């Protein structure tokens, strides 16, 4: 008797439940392209926005709809991009790896601090207090906002208070570009190795009092560079990267080492005639 009641009750119940589920199954199916999930799984989930989309999911949607190629994701390793390309049956659309480059060589061993800053230890905050106190108005303040903002630990501050970009880790997400109050960072293809390492707009050697590696706008690099590769604009040399720029000639005669060659392994290479700065410690705090 008990078993029969149980069978009847549960039979009815399960039947009812099954019925509801069947109806639900029929009425409420959401049709979304399953490939979006799959592609999103293959993306790095950093939501860094380097691709120009607000996050990895929108980028995945764009990938699936064919609006964009996987190569646009600069964060994924090559295998990852290849996997997505294979999955979607499209080309990788390889773009050259880009990295953030700093346009300042004025660490505290060569550049003076005119005033001692007190307050929130961040470049953005310091730059709002009379520019932060650095002698050079354009130079790096060295409080490391870029280091803090980098999600990939690609930026570290060196002993002289200058950020150093680890090009292997850098994904060109652009966060440091936005963070720097002095606008010293910019994103460049990794092949751009001829590099103007200064943003000083003043002409003449007066600036050398503030910073020993500043560009004095002497124009030697522009003169030496073949094929009008470099032109002086607003007292600064500007490299025309649309021309062949794989040459170290322009850096050779630079007196201060403001134009440099960036080598993946050796780091910053300065020209033969540039002053050798051997000071290991901090430069004396200057007069104001």
């Amino acid at each position: 008797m008990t078993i029969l009641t149980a069978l009847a009750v549960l039979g009815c119940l399960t039947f009812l439940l099954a019925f509801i589920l069947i109806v639900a199954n029929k009425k409420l199916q959401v049709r979304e392209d399953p490939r979006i999930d799959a592609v999103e799984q293959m993306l790095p989930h950093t939501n860094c926005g380097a691709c120009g989309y607000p996050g990895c999911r929108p980028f995945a949607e764009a990938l699936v709809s064919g609006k964009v190629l996987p190569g646009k994701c600069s964060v994924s390793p090559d295998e990852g991009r290849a996997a997505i390309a294979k999955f979607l049956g499209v080309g990788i659309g390889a773009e050259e790896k880009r990295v953030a480059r700093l346009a300042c060589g004025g660490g505290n061993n060569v550049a003076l601090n005119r005033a001692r800053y007190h307050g929130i230890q961040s470049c953005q905050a310091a730059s709002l207090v009379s520019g932060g106190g650095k002698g050079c108005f354009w130079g790096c303040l060295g409080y490391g906002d870029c280091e803090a903002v980098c999600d990939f630990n690609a930026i570290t501050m060196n002993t002289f208070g200058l950020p150093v970009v680890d090009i292997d880790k850098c994904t060109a997400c652009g966060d440091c570009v936005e963070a720097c109050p002095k606008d010293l960072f910019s994103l460049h293809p990794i092949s751009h190795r001829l590099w103007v390492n200064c943003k000083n707009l003043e002409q003449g050697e007066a600036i050398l009092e503030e910073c020993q590696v500043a560009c004095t706008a002497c124009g030697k690099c522009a003169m030496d560079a073949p094929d009008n590769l470099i032109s002086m604009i607003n007292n600064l040399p500007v490299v025309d990267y649309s021309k062949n720029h794989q040459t170290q000639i322009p850096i050779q005669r630079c007196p201060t080492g403001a134009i440099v060659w960036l080598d993946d392994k050796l780091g910053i290479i300065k020209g033969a005639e540039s002053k050798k700065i051997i000071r290991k410690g901090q430069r004396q705090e200057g007069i104001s």
Partner: protein
Amino acid sequence: MQTMSQADTTEPTISLKMLKAMVGIGIVCACLIALTFEYTLPRIENLKAEALNKAISIVIPGMVTKKTFGVDRNNNLLEVNNKDKSPHLLYAGYDENGKLMGLAVEASGIGFGGVLRILYGYDPEKQAITGFHVLESKETPGLGDKIEKSSDFLENFRALDVSLNEDNVTLKHKITVVKNGAKKNPWEIDGITGATISSRAIGNILADSTRQMAPLINRHKSNLEKN
């Protein structure tokens, strides 16, 4: 169109499969549950009865046999079977000679942490409460639950006076809870220090219940004594 027709052809089979799976599992489950129930039922009943007997024998010490009574709508006391449900259950305990030793009455009220259910023993002969046992409580452990553990407190219920007036309808004295150490009269309960609310709750439950039950029991005393 193509996807539509595909869906059309597959859906009935899926639905059928769903139905089959669910109802099948339902039936298996029903069997399992029913079998377990059948198998464990006698043992559970036994254990429950044992527990009840134990509780009753706490409040009616020395009880040997018992009978269950229920109160019907007209305030009559009737003997009931175990199976029947009644809002008020009384258990009459008898010694080996079949003499009525006392009654165990269930009562409940609101304590410190919610509902408090107790079983108390009532001796119609002495017109006194002979003990109580907590069936369900949410009182604070270590404090409120002293009502079950404190021997001083339980001492109150050796013979708590609930004697009736001559009219056999009202109580002579209402059970009251007094501050610890202030008990002077047999109808007073010595409260527990630090668990005032809980000890008061017991007093209130007993007072409420006895006001109704004591006259009732007295009325049906003869009925109860028949064994």
